[in-house]
């Protein structure tokens, strides 16, 4: 079974991020860069499928030199091969452009299943996975918490408001991950050593046969960033006893905040 994982490097969710003075860019500063948590689930699921069915796992990412580390992490977990598209022309892509780049890479490869994170926790866009499937003209199922493959079909449980829906799809297909799908393994020390010797190709857009026209124009543009309104720390409710404090709280919620 040939498995492809789409992976993005993002600042860890524990880190502070800010914006530049002119509000035109996000300042990541020295935030720790990690594999997007939802993509870790994707790597883990691909590895499990490989363990059960044989085949190989290829990680594909669009990013800068630094993204090599994230791909190596995936290789250390057990993936076989990595491809990084690193091209200045791809620096400010919107979701559809990124999806076209990824689809262009995948078109020349054999694959049964593509697994992507439901979203990256930096731009929270939820677009790339489904769009890659569209550009490859294959079915997609988002927010998958459980999958089983049998008789050339994949059956997935996916999250919906208030529950789950089970959907079956023909293969090849693309699925996106939801928490609960699995618990990603840690890279072992031998895994990290092995990863250093695994193939990791870095390519430019022209290497995958994509020019500016093929990538499409940037149609979704961020014109400015701002910080959300600062929440002012409110009051700590004082009182002799817990009961006094609670009485004051409920009164405030009713009369001041008017939320009860």
């Amino acid at each position: 079974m040939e498995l492809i994982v789409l992976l993005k490097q993002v600042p860890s969710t524990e880190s502070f991020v800010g914006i530049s003075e002119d509000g035109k860019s996000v300042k990541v500063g020295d935030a720790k860069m990690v594999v997007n948590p939802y993509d870790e689930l994707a790597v883990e699921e691909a590895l499990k499928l490989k363990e059960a069915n044989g085949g190989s796992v290829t990680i594909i990412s669009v990013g800068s030199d630094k993204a090599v580390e994230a791909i190596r992490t995936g290789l250390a977990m057990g993936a076989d091969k990595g491809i990084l598209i690193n091209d200045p022309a791809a620096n400010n892509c919107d979701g559809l452009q990124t999806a076209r780049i990824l689809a262009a890479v995948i078109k020349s490869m054999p694959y049964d299943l593509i697994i992507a994170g439901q979203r990256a926790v930096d731009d929270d866009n939820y677009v790339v996975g489904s769009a890659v499937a569209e550009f490859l003209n294959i079915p997609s199922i988002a927010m998958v918490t459980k999958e089983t493959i049998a008789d050339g079909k994949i059956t997935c449980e996916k999250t919906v408001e208030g529950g789950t829906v089970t959907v079956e799809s023909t293969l090849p297909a693309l699925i996106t991950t939801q928490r609960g799908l699995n618990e990603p393994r840690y890279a072992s020390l031998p895994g990290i050593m092995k990863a250093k010797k695994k193939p990791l190709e870095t390519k430019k857009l022209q290497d995958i046969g994509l020019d500016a026209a093929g990538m499409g124009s940037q149609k979704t543009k961020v014109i400015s960033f701002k910080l959300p309104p600062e929440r002012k720390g409110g009051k700590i409710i004082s009182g002799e006893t817990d009961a006094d404090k609670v009485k004051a709280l409920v009164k405030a919620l009713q009369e001041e905040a008017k939320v009860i």
Partner: protein
Amino acid sequence: MSCGVLAITEQVDGVFRKVTYEALSEGRRIADGLGCALSVAVLGSGIKSNAETLGKYGAEKIFVADDPELKEYMTDTYTNVIAGIAAKEKPRMIILGASFRGKELAARLAARLDAPIAMDCIAVRLEGGKVIATRPVYGGKILADVELEGEPQIVAIRPNFMAIAESQKAGTVEDAAIDKGKIDLKFIEKKLETGKVELTEADVIVSGGRGMGGADFSIVEKLAEVLGGAVGASRSAVDEGWRPHSDQVGQTGKVVSPNLYIACGISGAIQHLAGMSSSKVIVAVNKDPEAPIFAKADFGIVGNLFDVVPLITEEIKKAKGL
């Protein structure tokens, strides 16, 4: 440049979900700003009589795709049918709810129509005839203003954020052409917990964190129950296995914005704060007066949550005359 705003409805078993009315109301507001008409696409099975009610929320035209195979949302059939309606109507904007299915549909539709897309928007405004959408990124740590170039502009709005406004319009019902296209997906079953309030749509959320000390969330559940709210959890509580993943609030879980958020035994890690800071009113109960959550909370009580939370439940019962 074409005109017209097309809203997409969302129904479960023939009943419109709340986000449908939010998308219609916001769509109406934008259409008025642009001087355009608002139409709405309704997909489902046996949905026609319900569809007729949507004129009340500002729809001039109601396109109904009523077909047994559209009973359940499936990304492929829904994308195919809506792309067909969009190709015919050529709307300037398509607006829908960024629910789980809405996000998936919006993404696939954007790729199909080669359309600009703003996902999970919390505000939409017009500036010199241009549509600017505001959407949270980095789990809400930052807000991005996004401009959409080209048409149709797809705007997916965050559920539970936009106001619902009634505005009676003609609401003329038309049968839409139903081109289901190539079908690869098959619906097997759905399991919905009846009566459970979805976190992203809840008006009130009571969340528990590490301070809960274990999987017994009964005091949190009771408080949520008297408030008609949902139960949430911090990542540590989920990582400990005390609560299911679907309860997690934060940057790697759900980003929520209820009217009232009560954090019990949650210290306030940055990735949790990112996920709940847009709540209208935040209450924190924590035994550590230095907990970062207090810096974000409108009201804080320093104390043992096992004593304080049941007292809040009782006090609210009294206040509500329960």
